[in-house]
């Protein structure tokens, strides 16, 4: 299974880089060729260190993706080349043969070799956080340009998607001991300086294979916390670009000096229920829950109307979107109440809803949901819980009946969304009782391929079962929002699909 952190995210950046690179040529007349972009980033909470094997915070990918070139690069619906120019998958989906990109070099000028690829993947594999690599059985190199990875299970497709993330970062074998503080990669930028809790400064990598795609001479990541501080940072000019939450978006959307870019992500807020104990061990109760949330209203009130209601686990532009399910589960409190009565809960269902503290979006959402669900017969008592205690208290110790959480997906790697939730090896599946053996074969079949044409129909089927069984209650597809200073930032600003990433290809600083 590729349920590693790697598989949690979808990464459009490299694809943008490729397109930007191909379009690059003439320098815009207003481009400052020595431009330094100040990018607001929560270094304290979203970054750990530069070593792909020990990085414990997936949001570190925002920076890491600029330092390291991964084996593959993600695109809108397919994977493209990174360190590997191309690859083939064996018919049994257990062997992947990579052809390395000719002439690719690390930032220190050293050529990227098959030995480096092997050393990187085997080293990163040691990290329990990168479980997607646990499928690696052997890595061989029949010639300097070719790397053959033998997997222990038929998950080649999922493996390839994972390699587009931190898991697939390639670094020189000799730098493994110092990677945490002195990263050497083949990405578009090089670390210049790092001040813990304050700044991470990058400068352009002169050896990058697609240098034209990244006009910025340097990028300074500046510590900015989430929330109101992000707004003051962008409006005061302390940073030139920053990712915003929907609450903050409304504060800058009418500011004539600030530009915004919104991309609809595959990440979604979901209500995970404890399906192995009452009341949610009753499928009728769970089905009623699907009708008890007014997703359209939530999108309007909590997400400023810039997200998308999630009536199923995949958005309408995904190959996994099931047209038959469509928007079937619209808010219908009367129907939900009737279903609860049939299930033996005619006086309603009281339950404890766990909500991560410190996440204002989730807290606002919980309050709105509480009122909506009350009309449908679900009486939720909200309990705030520190995020660091979620694993132990909610999963291990069984606190609460449901958990409101953000399901960070790997975008187009659509089968990955369900791995940890519904496969026997999954952590939530084990502790929340969401395992459903009826859908496991379809998830595994989808893992074998990286093609949306194969994964799509399988996931449509799985999505329909998830909703019919009420295995979870998807609420809202989260918008990815970027704000930037119009007088400073040039180029086509695109918000990355999903959280914890940056998309800086083609961006420049104006004169």
């Amino acid at each position, binding site marked *: 299974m590729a349920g590693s952190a790697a598989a949690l995210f979808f990464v459009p950046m490299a694809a943008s880089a490729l397109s930007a690179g191909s379009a690059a040529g003439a320098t815009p007349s207003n481009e400052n060729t020595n431009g330094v972009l100040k990018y607001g980033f929560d270094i304290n909470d979203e970054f750990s260190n530069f*070593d792909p094997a*020990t990085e414990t915070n997936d949001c570190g990918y925002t920076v890491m993706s600029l330092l390291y070139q991964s084996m593959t690069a993600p695109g809108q619906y397919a994977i493209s080349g990174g360190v590997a120019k191309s690859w083939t998958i064996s018919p049994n989906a257990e062997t992947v043969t990579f052809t390395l990109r000719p002439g690719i070099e690390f930032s220190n000028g050293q050529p990227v070799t098959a030995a480096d690829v092997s050393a990187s993947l085997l080293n990163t594999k040691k990290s*329990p956080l990168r479980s997607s690599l646990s499928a690696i059985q052997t890595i061989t190199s029949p010639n300097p340009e070719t790397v053959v990875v033998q997997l222990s299970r038929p998950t080649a497709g999922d493996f390839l998607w994972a390699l587009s993330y931190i898991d697939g970062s390639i670094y020189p074998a000799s730098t493994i001991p110092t990677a945490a*503080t002195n990263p050497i990669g083949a990405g578009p930028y090089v670390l210049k300086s790092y001040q813990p809790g*304050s700044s991470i400064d990058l400068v352009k990598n002169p050896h990058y294979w697609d240098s034209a795609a990244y006009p910025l001479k340097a990028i300074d990541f500046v510590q900015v916390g989430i929330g109101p501080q992000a707004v003051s940072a962008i409006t005061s000019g302390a940073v030139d670009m920053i990712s915003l939450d929907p609450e903050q978006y409304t504060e800058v959307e009418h500011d004539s000096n600030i530009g915004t870019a919104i991309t609809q992500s595959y990440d979604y807020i979901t209500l995970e229920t404890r399906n192995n104990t009452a009341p949610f061990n009753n499928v009728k109760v769970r089905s009623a829950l699907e009708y008890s949330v007014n997703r359209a209203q939530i999108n309007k009130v909590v997400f400023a109307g810039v997200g998308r209601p999630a009536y199923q686990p995949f958005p309408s532009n995904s190959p996994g979107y099931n047209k038959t399910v469509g928007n079937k589960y619209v808010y219908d409190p009367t129907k939900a109440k009737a279903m609860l009565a049939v299930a033996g809960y005619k006086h309603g269902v009281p339950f404890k809803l766990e909500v991560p503290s410190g996440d204002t979006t989730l807290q606002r959402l919980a309050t709105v949901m509480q009122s909506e669900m009350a009309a449908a017969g679900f009486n939720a008592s909200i309990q705030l819980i520190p995020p660091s205690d979620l694993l132990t208290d909610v999963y291990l110790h069984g606190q609460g009946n449901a958990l409101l959480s953000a399901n960070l997906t790997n975008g187009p790697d659509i089968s990955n969304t369900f791995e940890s939730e519904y496969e026997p090896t999954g952590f939530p599946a084990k502790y929340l009782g969401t395992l459903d053996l009826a859908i496991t074969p379809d998830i595994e079949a989808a893992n074998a391929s990286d093609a949306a044409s194969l994964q799509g129909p399988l996931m449509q089927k799985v999505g329909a079962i998830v909703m019919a069984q009420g295995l979870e209650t998807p609420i809202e597809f989260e918008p990815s929002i970027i704000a930037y200073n119009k007088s400073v930032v040039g180029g086509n600003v695109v918000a990355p699909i999903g959280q914890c990433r940056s998309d800086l290809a083609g961006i420049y600083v104006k004169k």
Partner: protein
Amino acid sequence: MGSGGSLLSFIVRRLIITIPLLLLISFGVFSLVLILPGNPALLLAGGIHSTPAEVAKITVQLHLNEPFWRQYLRWLNGIIHGNLGRSLFNGNPTVASGIAERFPVTLFLAIGGMILSILIGIPAGIIAGVRAGSASDRLVTVGSSLGVAIPDFWLALLLVIVFAVDTHVLPALGYVEWGTSPWGWFQHLLLPWLALGLGGSATIARQVRGALIDTLDQDYMRTAVAKGLSPRRVIGKHALKNALSPAVTVIGIQFGYLLGGTIIIEQIFSLPGIGEYILTAISVKDLPVIQGVVLVTATAFVLINLFVDVIYGYLNPKVRLG
């Protein structure tokens, strides 16, 4: 000589008391952190992707499976040898290096805030105390009441809006090393200093005002005036020395508070100090960092109090008897 010897023995007595106090603090810090909910081994083992075997392996690696007393003695042994341990995350740097990197920022912040508090608070308190009941006294009283009532985080946000967002006079956040740019360093710390210092100055002003009014009401002050001493000499030489004694205690306590209590201000202004360091550590249950920072902060607080006691003992010989 007699007075000096007495002061010396006073210092020695206080130092002796400090040792068991620090031991008690170390025990308290270790105990509190261990009973916190959450499990760092689970996070390190991959969170929701972890396996029981991996969690068990990391639990052993971190010695979390050992009895409490053994873990405490292991940690204490490290402390005695100057080893605060290593962070469980971030590539495992030493806690000492993490504190060393961040402590100067917090120290500059606290010193600057304290200086501002003193520069504003003492003169304001003297003016109000000497002219009790006058318009300037009322102004200081109202101002200091507001200063005490307004939370420093609210003041900080207000300062950011006025001086950074609206007027772009000062930076809203961030930190520049003194060595990189002294002017940049000053600019980035000015708003945090104001946010911390204005509240502190209000407390000091109230303290000085009250003490000065009490002192000026004493018989020996009237005697000094009756002897024909000038008001400047009466206040400057006789009244202030007594009136400032309690203020010294307040200043000492406030400085200790600033060293350990600037978390919110550091967050608002994105300053890479101790507060940010421990907050991040708490969020991921980085036990060695939490223990190290709390211990160092508590030790600093104890030492500052010791220093204050010594000054107080110098100003008021009577307390040395205790």
